[in-house]
Each structure stands twice: as C-alpha cells, then as structure tokens.
C-alpha cells in the first residue's frame, strides 16, 4: 500500500531541530517506509525516520513538502504526519 500527500511548512521557524524530532518520532512509530520530498527552489529528499537527513532538508516556512509512505499503515502515516505539519508542530 502506498500513500502520498502534499503539505506546506507554515510554522515561522521552519523545519528546525524540534519539529524534526517530533516528525521523526511520529514517523518511526509506523511500519511503513516514509520519504519526504522537499519542493521549491532547491528540491531534496530525506528518509522521514532520519533526524540528520530531515535537518539537512532545511525546509523553511512556505516550503512545499510531499510525504510518501509505503507499507501496511501508509494511509494512516501520511494522514497523521500531514496533520503534524499543519498543526505547526505546536509552535507559532
């Protein structure tokens, strides 16, 4: 099973360490493989379960992301991770 959805980073500070940790914590709870594609001027890909790779994305506010999941819980993973990004990771 695969699932995919786009979402835009909306918290002011972008994908800095704390949001990355929250994202990776959540992604790691799913059996599915999770890939994050950063769109915009400098596209890049990261393993959604790797802190280092996610920090290297350096995705700032306004950057479009595509979250891809492959595995038995793909739908649920994408849905919850998109909701996390949309919630601004609990920040401003």
């Amino acid at each position, binding site marked *: 099973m695969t699932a995919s959805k786009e979402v835009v980073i909306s918290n*002011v500070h*972008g*994908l*800095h*360490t704390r949001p990355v*940790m929250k994202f990776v914590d959540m992604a790691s709870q799913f059996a599915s493989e999770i890939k994050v594609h950063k769109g915009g001027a400098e596209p890049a890909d990261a393993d959604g379960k790797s*802190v280092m790779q996610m920090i*290297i994305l*350096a995705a700032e506010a306004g950057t479009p992301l595509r979250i891809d999941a492959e595995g038995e819980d793909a739908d649920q993973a994408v849905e919850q991770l998109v909701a996390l990004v949309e919630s601004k990771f609990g920040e401003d």
Partner: protein
Amino acid sequence: MKLSEFIVPEAIIPALESTERDAVLREMVSSLADAGALPREAIDEVVAAIIKREQNGSTGFGKGVAVPHVKHPKVKKMAGTVGRSETGIDFAALDHQPVYSVVLLLSPDNQPQQHLQAMNIIFSSLQKDMFRRFLRQSTTRQAIQELLEEADQGK
C-alpha cells in the same frame, strides 16, 4: 552557505578542558566571546538558554557528535565553533554513546532561514563518516580549520 561564513576560527577548541556537558557549553560560548563573536555579559544568559534547549531534547544525534544551538536576542550575528574532547562527554545522546566532537551554533532570534541553512551545512558534513573520523583525529586548531575548509570546497 559555507562553514567558514559562521565558524569563528579563533574560537575553535582542539582539546576541551571540561568533561561535563554544561561546563563544555560554557567553555565553548566563552571562547566565542573571547574571539569577539558575543558580548561577554551575554555569556551566562546564552549558556543557560543552550542548557535549557538540551534539556528539552539532546542535540547529541549519535555517532559521537553533538550540535548544541540556540536562537537568542543577545546574539547579533550568527557564530559557531567546534570543540573536541579526548575523554568523551555525556550529552544524553540518542544512541547513549559519549560525544567527542561538538559543533555549537548561536543564531539571532529573528533569522530562522539563515539558521536552517547553517544547520544544513553542519549536518551535511557531520553525516559523512570521513569527516567525523578526521575531526576526531584533528588535534590542533589549524588541522580542524583545514578540515572545515576542505568540507567547504566539497572534498
């Protein structure tokens, strides 16, 4: 962005005297202040902010490296430094292993994009096995500086 744009060469510490995390953070921030990258009177506040940041979640991401960082209003210009420990530091790292190489980054509180770019370039280097190994073996300020220059040139 390049490491040389924010790493202050005079503040690099090839052999940290401190062995405890909080003391290491103070030693590195003081070194940046000594190099003129931060007002001396801001040291206490900035160190406290970094410690608080570490308590919220360790920046010891594993593989013997830690990247303590903070955005703080007393920081007027982004500045970073590198510290090496011979003995290893308990950073409450994610992999529970001691930390031997510390990259510390201070950013102003109103330039999130610049901060993300700096974290990008730091982690791009730190995720390379060779870079981590050479950093751990670099026993002088000059050797560390040369390693950073090579990383900037994409070697």
